[in-house]
């Protein structure tokens, strides 16, 4: 081993005892751990996303419709020569026939015809030789098995049929979009569908035609179909539609990037401050080594070796920690994600270590190079050498390079840049506000306490550090408070806004011939509910003329014109709707009348007396608006934009819908209902919300863990900033005691400063957390924001405790006889 390497090793060993090196090591360790962890997780998610979007369609082109595809369409596509196949997907209840009390569960059923899928492949366990389950068999996902307590080889009930589970579904393309893509899936053979009785005219389902072929034919079909799409049809192509971007996984990815960037910035700042302090302490040593005959190049090598040695140890430690945490998060999320996340690319295991090295070198190089330029005369004069311009320029270049590295590393340079700027601007703003508040808060004290006046001077003297410290602490506490509160509160508050009699079960797909028996069942069991018929129709006329030419640009954007509306009819006004204008029909009127929801009235500029025309399954029905209703859309009761008077729609095929509330033991009635009417679709709202709560909690836990590490990073940074100012503080304390202050006064002054700093930071964090939470409340759950008084107490208390404890731990008491010696030593 060379002399230089030996010297570097010894130097590192001695410096491990100094606080700045300990902080540097801790910060680098966390940076490497978090980077590796977030890269691994991010890559898993991203690969998951990519796989989902590449395989998502299971075809090159998909025509999706909420109604069975018309024969003309099918003929049109048949003629093109593309390979094609048909799938029906719908929600339905399944149950374990031997499961006793195990409640039925809601799943997404896909009934497909071979060949299926046309692109990508279905993976099952055990692997199957056929494209699809044989008739009478079913493939189900793990969540179905665990929730219903079933094993492959056993049977489950779907509607009037029983199916044998022949394989576990590991992954499959063509999951559909939206919420249904996240519910548990089962696949059956299309030939079994009729016998189940679950799909009848008017049932909610997605009818898809999958197409594949050479690029030109697909493009030609795309061009041919797109202009002629009906309102209930959608055309999905691989390149143009990426239904998963902007969804939950996409958001998770963005959150990971935010966390990574915050943690990396904090680490970089800690390393920067630690190395600055370290290099300041090395002036004399460097001048001595140069004086002893080392050349500047050798000196630079010693310090670089020292950084490299530290990096090797930290790279191993950090990567190992990340691997452990990664497997913990995989465990937490395993049951929640629709499919197991793919393994990350092998080279990514070393990403954190690599970034750690780049950080250490880019941040470490400028101070190390400036150490090599220390004049030997420093040994004689003992003063600190002036920072030359070249060193400053080099440092700026290195920091800019580091910023570029971070942005490139996060793979979304623009988003990361915006975030970086937001964090910096937000941090600076918080820093300045906190410092301003601090000065204002000290004013009343200055007039009452002797210490108050000194505090004012202290605040002026420490203002730069206060700005940095408060910026970091306020940002971190805000993040912490938001994650903490939203992880359980948002959902709880959303649920709390519903009255206690809010229904918790929805029943859909009730066929007309089932209605009398179901009515009887509900009555016998004293279940309070009302059944409504449901028919789909498209609004196409206003006052006997096509509606579109009569509307302005803004009105044309209205959603009610772009999809089929759920229409209903009833004799009596639904009790949960409010009559706002007009009159409800008394008897069956001579001519059809309708009651319209108030927002739709306003958005389309309708008035009472107007007549609206609807296309219902190709037939035209018109009716006059005679009343306006107010509808609470989140009431968990059947709600409709348009309700017809009796007599107008009865001749059209319809299904019925209802909702009701069952509590405690009476929840078993739902199971009983399903065994009597197997083809009904029962949606258990409590179960859905419980699923959502588990999701939020697990995601909250995972993000709290990542945030915890980020927070720890922030704490180390705090300790380093306090250390930076420590010598200055000790020197100041010595001077003040020499000038006549007592030891107790200087101690109290420190405590007062830390306490005030903590209170101000905590209050500011509380305020900004309330703002963010209020935004979340309004945007996500539409609930009037409420204040969280706990935050107002907890955050200032937490911040003050933190500052006082860190301050007291770092501040060593200064005896009077040390003061003069300290001042002399500084001479």
């Amino acid at each position, binding site marked *: 081993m060379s002399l230089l390497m030996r010297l570097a090793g010894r130097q590192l060993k001695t410096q491990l005892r100094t606080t700045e090196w300990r902080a540097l090591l801790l910060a680098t360790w966390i940076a490497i751990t978090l980077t590796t962890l977030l890269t691994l997780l991010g890559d898993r998610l991203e690969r998951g996303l990519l796989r989902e979007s590449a395989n998502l369609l299971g075809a090159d082109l998909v025509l999706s419709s909420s109604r069975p595809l018309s024969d003309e369409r099918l003929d049109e596509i048949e003629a093109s020569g593309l390979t094609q196949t048909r799938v029906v997907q719908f929600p339905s209840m399944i149950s374990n026939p031997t499961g006793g009390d195990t409640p039925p569960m809601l799943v997404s059923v896909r009934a497909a015809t071979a060949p299926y899928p046309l692109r990508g492949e279905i993976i099952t366990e055990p692997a199957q030789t056929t494209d699809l389950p044989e008739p009478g068999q079913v493939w189900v996902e793990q969540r179905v098995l665990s929730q219903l307590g079933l094993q492959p080889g056993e049977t489950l009930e779907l509607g009037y049929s029983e199916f044998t589970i022949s394989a576990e579904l590991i992954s499959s393309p063509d999951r559909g979009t939206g919420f249904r893509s996240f519910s548990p899936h089962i696949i059956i053979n299309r030939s079994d569908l009729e016998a189940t009785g679950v799909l009848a005219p008017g049932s909610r389902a997605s009818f898809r035609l999958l197409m594949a072929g050479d690029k030109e034919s697909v493009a030609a079909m795309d061009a041919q179909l797109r202009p002629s799409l009906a309102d209930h049809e959608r055309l999905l192509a691989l390149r143009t539609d990426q239904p998963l971007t902007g969804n939950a996984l996409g958001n998770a990815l963005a959150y990971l990037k935010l966390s990574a960037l915050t943690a990396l910035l904090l680490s970089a700042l800690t390393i920067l401050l630690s190395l600055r302090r370290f290099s300041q302490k090395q002036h004399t040593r460097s001048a001595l080594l140069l004086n002893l005959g080392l050349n500047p190049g050798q000196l630079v090598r010693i310090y670089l070796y020292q950084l490299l040695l530290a990096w090797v140890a930290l790279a191993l430690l950090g990567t190992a920690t990340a691997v452990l945490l990664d497997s913990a998060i995989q465990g937490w999320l395993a049951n929640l994600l629709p499919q197991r996340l793919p393994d990350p690319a092998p080279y990514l295991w070393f990403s954190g270590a690599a970034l750690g090295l780049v950080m250490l070198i880019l941040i470490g190089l400028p101070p190390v190079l400036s150490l090599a330029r220390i004049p030997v005369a420093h040994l004689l004069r003992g003063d600190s050498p002036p920072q030359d311009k070249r060193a400053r320029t080099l440092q700026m270049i290195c920091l800019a390079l580091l910023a570029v590295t971070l942005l490139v590393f996060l793979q979304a340079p623009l988003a990361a840049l915006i975030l970086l700027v937001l964090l910096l601007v937000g941090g600076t703003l918080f820093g300045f506000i906190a410092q301003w508040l601090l000065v204002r808060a000290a004013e009343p004290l200055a007039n009452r306490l*002797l210490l108050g*006046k*000194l505090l004012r*001077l202290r605040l*002026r*003297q*420490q*203002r*730069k550090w206060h700005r940095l410290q408060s910026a970091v602490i306020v940002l971190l506490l805000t993040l912490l408070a938001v994650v903490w509160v939203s992880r359980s509160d948002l959902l709880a508050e959303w649920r709390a806004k519903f009255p206690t009699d809010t229904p918790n079960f929805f029943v859909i797909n009730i066929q007309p011939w089932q209605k009398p028996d179901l009515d009887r069942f509900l009555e016998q069991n004293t279940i309070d509910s009302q059944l409504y018929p449901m028919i789909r129709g498209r609004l196409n006329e206003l006052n006997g003329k096509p509606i579109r030419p009569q509307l302005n640009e803004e009105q044309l954007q209205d959603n009610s014109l772009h999809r089929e509306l759920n229409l209903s009819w009833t004799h009596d006004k639904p009790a949960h709707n409010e009559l706002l204008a007009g009159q409800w029909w008394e008897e069956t009127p001579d001519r059809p009348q309708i009651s319209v929801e108030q927002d739709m009235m306003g958005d389309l500029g309708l008035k009472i007396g107007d007549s609206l025309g609807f296309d219902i399954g190709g037939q035209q029905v018109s009716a006059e608006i005679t009343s306006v209703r107010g509808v609470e859309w989140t009431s968990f009761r059947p709600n409709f934009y348009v309700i017809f008077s009796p007599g107008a729609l009865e001749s059209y095929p319809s299904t019925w819908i209802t909702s009701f509330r069952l509590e405690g033991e009476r929840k078993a009635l739902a199971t009983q209902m399903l065994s009597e009417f197997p083809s009904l679709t029962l949606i258990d709202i409590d179960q859905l919300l419980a699923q959502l709560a588990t999701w939020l909690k697990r995601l909250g836990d995972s993000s709290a863990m990542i945030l915890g590490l980020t927070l720890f990073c922030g704490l180390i940074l705090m300790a380093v900033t306090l250390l930076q100012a420590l010598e200055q503080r000790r*020197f*100041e304390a010595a*001077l*003040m*005691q*020499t*000038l*006549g*202050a*007592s*030891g*107790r*006064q200087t101690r109290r002054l420190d405590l007062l400063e830390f306490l005030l700093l903590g209170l101000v930071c905590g209050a500011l964090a509380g305020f900004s957390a309330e703002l963010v939470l209020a935004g979340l409340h309004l945007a996500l759950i539409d609930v009037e924001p409420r204040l969280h008084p706990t935050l107002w107490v907890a955050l200032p208390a937490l911040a003050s405790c933190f500052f006082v404890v860190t301050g007291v731990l770092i501040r060593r008491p200064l005896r*009077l*006889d040390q*003061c*003069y*010696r300290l*001042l*002399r030593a*500084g*001479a």
Partner: protein
Amino acid sequence: MDQSTRENLMIETRSISKVFQTEAGAVTLFSGLDLQVRPGESLAIVGRSGAGKSTLLSLLAGLDTATEGQVLIEGQEMELLGDEERARLRATKISFIFQSFHLLPELTALDNVRLPLEIRGAESPDKEAAHWLSQVGLEPRLHHYPAQLSGGEQQRVAIARAFATQPRLLFADEPTGNLDEETGARIIDQLFALNQQQDTTLILITHDPELAARCDRRLRLHNGALTEITS
């Protein structure tokens, strides 16, 4: 020296010694030192490095305690005073001027001079601080930070800070050590002028024989003993 003279002394030491405990055993810096300083007198203490001049100064200022013997300031025995009382005494009667000025870099010249005034709870610290800065000719530099001032100007701020509390006793530890000859001379003129004007007792530690010669009395600390230097 009779009793009444003793009571009128600014500083009196009675056979003080200072012993440091080291790993190699006890090291005696000095022992049996007797010293009397009258009010308004200026006294220079000279001696080679390591002779214990600064330790002696911190004992005389009540910043440290003697291993044996007593230190009295205006007849008050330092040993008998608690921390708070000694702090009070420093705040009201004692000031220091250091070789490396020791201004707080984050405070302006005005704030630096205000600091001891705030500590002693002065009525109008701003006005007083500005007055003393104008006394040393720094009126145009009130709001400058130390880094924006030359060495000589920084030492003048330190002098203003020392006189701002109108001390009875002023300790100056190598006040020109970090200044060039010409600036040092100007600073010393200012120091002595103010000293005379305020009738302050000055205790000066220096290597500079010329500076020492300007004091009323000169003492050499050598081998743990104080000897008077006669011209």
